[in-house]
């Protein structure tokens, strides 16, 4: 079905049209319309994937595994829907407070990155996944250096260099798998990998895990992240902070469910997950700038998602997936609040800010809700996400890791209150205006945590269904490789 490619084609064509259009207003109009269309298409794809298990598009009508296929299962479709929504909301924030040095091409980069993300989520071909990773990375290099200051170029260098290394490892991993199995179609791989020579498959899986780990910013591969998120315009950082690492997390999920399914807890991954939680939150405590604190928290939260994956049961995968979706909404909202503060007050340093909650009560509220959710306070979605992960962890007998994760969430609360006391309490500043459209953008992602917290049963049902289907890769393989 062609619907599987719509979340890739729509942003691709939107971006192109924006590059070709002559007037600024036209570009914004097309850009926002295309972003909305992409949200609609990807939500529709979620409904289709739920009804049909896997929505398959065989490009050029070539059958798998010979041609390239898009195979949108519930996992991929959910990720693509939330990604499209984040892209639209952050784009609106950028429209509300245009960056002074923004040129006309950034729409192209914005939508190209969305196309790359959605392609990575929906493709059923490992090499194609590599290609879409590159598409999204090229677009992200461009967005990261938007405004082209010398400092941005220097900080971006770390990001570009680590991603180039990761991509090379990814490519070598794919080559090894191809040597061992003779296929790069994921469904075909999942069927034939168990019989292939472990001497080739094991290093291949390791290389892929490291490559995806760099992109997901797990311990000890996260050094690039704090550099990357500090200098680009605020809404770009929100877009990156929401989605960029989650593409890596998605790829890890794909690797350890469809391709090389875990059966029960995987000690190495559990250890890595706990270390990621702890080091991320410790890094955050040492920071004195809103955006830097939030960036380090991304790392810490990635730990919880990887923990869910590492437990290796469908219930834990569902919990991890719920965590991913919850975290994307919350983190994007927080970074958009910090973007609004930086755009209006010219700084994100805690020393220089105070009393924002007096000057902008609604801004205070839209920071407090996602911040509490991030720390896991009921009844917000973060509470449920943690409950599910903790429950899965206890069932798997990982008491130590669960204890660590609870301690980390206390420290999370601590550094969120640090931002709140530093920037939002205290004597009121000279009030600067924050545009209503920026509030709309924040609310667009921020409201998710309320909705999923108060009535998130349906989201849990969706992620549980997605995880059950991941636990049974045979159906996926049969649907992709079988008849039309």
């Amino acid at each position: 079905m062609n619907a599987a490619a719509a979340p890739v084609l729509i942003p691709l064509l939107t971006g192109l049209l924006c590059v070709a259009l002559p007037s600024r207003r036209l570009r914004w109009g097309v850009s926002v319309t295309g972003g909305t269309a992409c949200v609609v298409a990807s939500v529709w794809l979620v409904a289709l994937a739920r009804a049909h298990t896997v929505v398959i598009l065989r490009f050029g009508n070539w059958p798998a595994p010979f041609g390239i296929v898009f195979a949108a299962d519930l996992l991929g479709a959910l990720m693509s829907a939330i990604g499209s929504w984040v892209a639209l909301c952050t784009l609106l924030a950028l429209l509300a407070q245009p960056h002074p040095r923004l040129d006309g091409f950034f729409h192209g980069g914005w939508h190209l990155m969305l196309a790359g993300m959605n392609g990575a989520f929906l493709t059923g071909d490992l090499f194609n996944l590599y290609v879409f990773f590159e598409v999204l990375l090229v677009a992200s290099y461009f967005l990261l250096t938007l405004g082209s200051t010398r400092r941005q170029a220097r900080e971006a260098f770390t990001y570009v260099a680590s991603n180039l290394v990761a991509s090379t490892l990814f490519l070598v991993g794919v080559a090894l798998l191809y040597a061992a199995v003779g296929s790069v179609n994921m469904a075909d791989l999942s069927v034939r990998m168990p019989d292939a020579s472990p001497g080739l498959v094991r290093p291949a899986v390791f290389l892929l895990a490291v490559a995806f780990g760099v992109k997901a910013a797990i311990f000890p591969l996260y050094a690039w992240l704090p550099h990357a998120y500090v200098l680009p315009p605020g809404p770009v950082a929100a877009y990156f902070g929401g989605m960029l690492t989650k593409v890596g997390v998605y790829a890890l999920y794909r690797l350890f469910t469809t391709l090389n399914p875990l059966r029960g807890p995987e000690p190495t991954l559990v250890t890595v997950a706990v270390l990621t939680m702890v080091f991320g939150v410790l890094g955050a405590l040492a920071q004195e700038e809103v955006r830097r604190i939030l960036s380090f928290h991304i790392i810490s939260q990635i730990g919880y998602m990887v923990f869910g994956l590492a437990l290796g049961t469908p219930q834990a995968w569902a919990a991890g997936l719920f965590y991913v979706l919850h975290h994307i909404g919350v983190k994007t909202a927080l970074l958009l609040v910090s973007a609004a503060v930086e755009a209006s007050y010219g700084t994100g340093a805690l020393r220089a800010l105070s009393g924002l909650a007096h000057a902008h009560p609604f801004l205070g509220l839209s920071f407090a809700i996602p911040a509490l959710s991030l720390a896991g306070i009921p009844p917000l979605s973060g509470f449920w996400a943690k409950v599910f992960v903790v429950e899965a962890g206890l069932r798997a007998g990982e008491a130590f890791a669960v204890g660590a994760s609870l301690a980390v969430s206390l420290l999370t609360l601590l550094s969120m209150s640090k931002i709140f006391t530093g920037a939002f309490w205290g004597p009121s500043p000279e009030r600067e205006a924050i545009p209503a459209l920026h509030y709309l953008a924040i609310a667009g992602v921020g409201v998710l945590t309320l909705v999923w917290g108060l009535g998130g049963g349906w989201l849990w049902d969706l992620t549980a269904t997605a995880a059950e289907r991941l636990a049974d890769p045979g159906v996926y393989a049969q649907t992709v490789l079988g008849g039309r």
Partner: protein
Amino acid sequence: MNSLVLRTVARVVAPVVVLYGVRLLLVGHNSPGGGFVGGLVTALAVVLGWLAFGPPPRARRWERGVALGVGISAVTGLAAVLLGRPFLTHAVLYAGPVKLPTSLFFDVGVFLVVVSATLAAVRTLWEAGS
């Protein structure tokens, strides 16, 4: 670079290289070749011309060439969607005795993208270097 030897050679070689690039584009349907490599070869010929005779005085909007090229390629893919087939399904048309695969139009789009993107990159580096 002002060199009589280079100018003389370029005058002969560049047109041949362009022809070879176009040939690669045309045979790509069922022989080694295609829009990507054809585009690279053609762009090389243009860069050779720039080296010999100097680049055009003003930077052109090459980016629009990229947009046009991807647009053409996307439209050939979407034509299949309109006919209810999977995206990028191609067919062979016959214009009298001439076989005209629709994938040729796709390749033309790729060709345009590669030529424009390469020339834009070379031009940008050129300006940064001088």
